[in-house]
């Protein structure tokens, strides 16, 4: 936490040492070789799919649907849906979770968490379709996804703050930190690993659920699936399934690496 007076971009001896000993993205991978398993599976899977499809005779509909430009634009929509909803989950669930863990709010904590559980229990597909009655498009899709992924982050924020060693809070207050200073420099930093784990769950949930957004006209990779089902194109269905699975694995992997990097940093 010491702010060292170093110019950005200029590598210092400590920075170099940090990278080789576990700091940073590459350092985390180097320190955790098990993290290499998921990307290998993804690459091999996509390669096999590609080889299989290249050997097939695709008709015009299939060929047009699988054009890189088309797939990439749907991938872009999908990622945007995921990004928007996850960011929304972050800015809604984390502050509410923090507010719920304040001593004054302990009594409402149970009911609010129950509400979160209720939102999670609702089938996302149904929620999306209901929201479709209100408005077709990206906005309602993002709201639906956000609702479905709120609980893990909310619960992890509350739990993360609860598991902070009470004696550390007492030490902080005993040294004269205000409750606000204690929250921001002790409680939240120590809860970050748990909160990040919740965010990872929300992110992966959103990547999967975003496939359904196509039914209310919000696009995404679900478009490919829908097309394949409607036109009864098995090859197309196979490829879209493979892409969606690969994306979910990749996002989970990235989030996992980020999580470990954050945990390594916050001790």
């Amino acid at each position: 936490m010491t702010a060292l007076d170093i110019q950005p971009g200029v590598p210092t001896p400590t920075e170099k040492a940090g990278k080789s000993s576990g700091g940073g993205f590459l350092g985390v991978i180097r320190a955790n070789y098990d993290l290499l398993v998921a990307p290998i599976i993804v690459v091999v899977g996509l390669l096999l799919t590609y080889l299989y499809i290249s050997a097939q005779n695709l008709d015009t509909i299939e060929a047009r649907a699988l054009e890189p430009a088309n797939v990439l634009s749907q991938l872009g929509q999908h990622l945007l849906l995921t990004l928007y909803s996850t960011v929304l989950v972050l800015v809604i669930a984390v502050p509410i979770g923090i507010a719920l863990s304040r001593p004054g709010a302990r009594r409402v904590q149970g009911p609010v968490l129950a509400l979160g559980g209720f939102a999670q229990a609702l089938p996302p597909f149904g929620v999306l379709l209901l929201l479709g009655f209100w408005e077709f498009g990206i906005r309602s899709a993002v709201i639906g996804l956000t609702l479905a992924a709120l609980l893990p982050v909310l619960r992890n924020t509350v739990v993360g703050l609860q598991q902070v060693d009470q004696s550390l809070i007492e030490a902080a207050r005993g040294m004269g930190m205000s409750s606000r200073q204690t929250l921001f420099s002790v409680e939240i930093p120590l809860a970050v690993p748990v909160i990040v784990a919740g965010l990872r769950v929300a992110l992966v949930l959103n990547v999967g659920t975003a496939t359904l957004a196509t039914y209310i006209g919000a696009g995404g990779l679900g478009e490919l699936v829908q097309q394949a089902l409607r036109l009864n194109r098995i090859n197309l269905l196979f490829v879209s399934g493979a892409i969606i699975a690969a994306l979910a694995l990749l996002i989970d992997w990235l989030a996992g690496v980020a999580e470990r990097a954050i945990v390594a940093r916050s001790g």
Partner: protein
Amino acid sequence: MSETENMIVLEAVEKVYPGSTAPAVERLDMTIPKGEIVMLIGPSGCGKTTTLKMVNRLIEPTSGRIILDGEDVTDVNGDLLRRKIGYVIQQGGLFPHFSIADNIGVVPKMLGWDKNKIRERADELLHLVGLEPSTYRDRYPRQLSGGQQQRVGVARALAADPPVMLMDEPFGAIDPITRDRLQDEFLEIQRTVGKTICFVTHDLQEAVKLGDRIAVFATGGRLAQYDDPDTVLTHPADDFVSDFVGGGAAVRRLSLLELSRLELHPVETDVAAVGNQNGTPVAEVDGAGRPVSWRHLPDRDAAGTALVTVPLSGTVYDAVDVMLDGSASLVAVVDDEGLPQGVLHWNDLVAGLKTRERER
């Protein structure tokens, strides 16, 4: 108490927790003179920790006044008050995500000290508690042993040089050997810093060893006795205190008796004195004059008796300890250079120890 100034004064302080009718701390009047260590001791639930936390208002008293260094602090801002009072808890309570230097710098940073000054202060304090700054300042608490963490905890409390320190069972979770060493170091540090210290413990041995005064709390938050250790051990105020002090009082008192205050028997190092009839033991010394074995002992075979030594700065308790340990019925008391200053016989313990008038 005309000469000494009172650092902490508790006036009719009482704590009743909401939803309970019995007070956790019953109407308490207590004065703590500047530069003294006061040990708060008693069974669990006796209000000793509550009392400690009322001094820095981590727990707000229900009624009564708290006066710190002549200033009534009952109603001042608690956060600002606490920055002026050192606070040490069990296992140090170090922040795991802060480096050691940053942990020590918490209070100075809140007080707005300059960055270089904070760093210098951290190094200075690490040095004071016996940790090499260059090795430890950038480490994290999890890389330190329990004893080292506790040292850093003490350093952190001293950071802004507060006149008063509150310590809540700081050595409670530490193994006995390390605890003993930490206690010695703590007394050493106190000798240089001279803080007014309020120290909660459940260990009577610790209270007797460290305290200038002991406050014994009884169940129900009543202050049963507030006296110097010797008086608490020898003249318990009531049945509760005598029960609490228990049967070991006589043995515990031994650690209050400093060897330097005793009238010791003479010891000879001259070979010519072997065979003397006046009962003076003769020790064989090495080149530097340190005793290595007995040449002559009255009424006993000198060769069969181990020569054990105890430093003059120790207590009778230490002397008894080495005698039992070495199966010896007498012990040579040596000064800082290891030169013999006298002997203490086992029989002296039961015959009554003669103390010299303190030269002050």
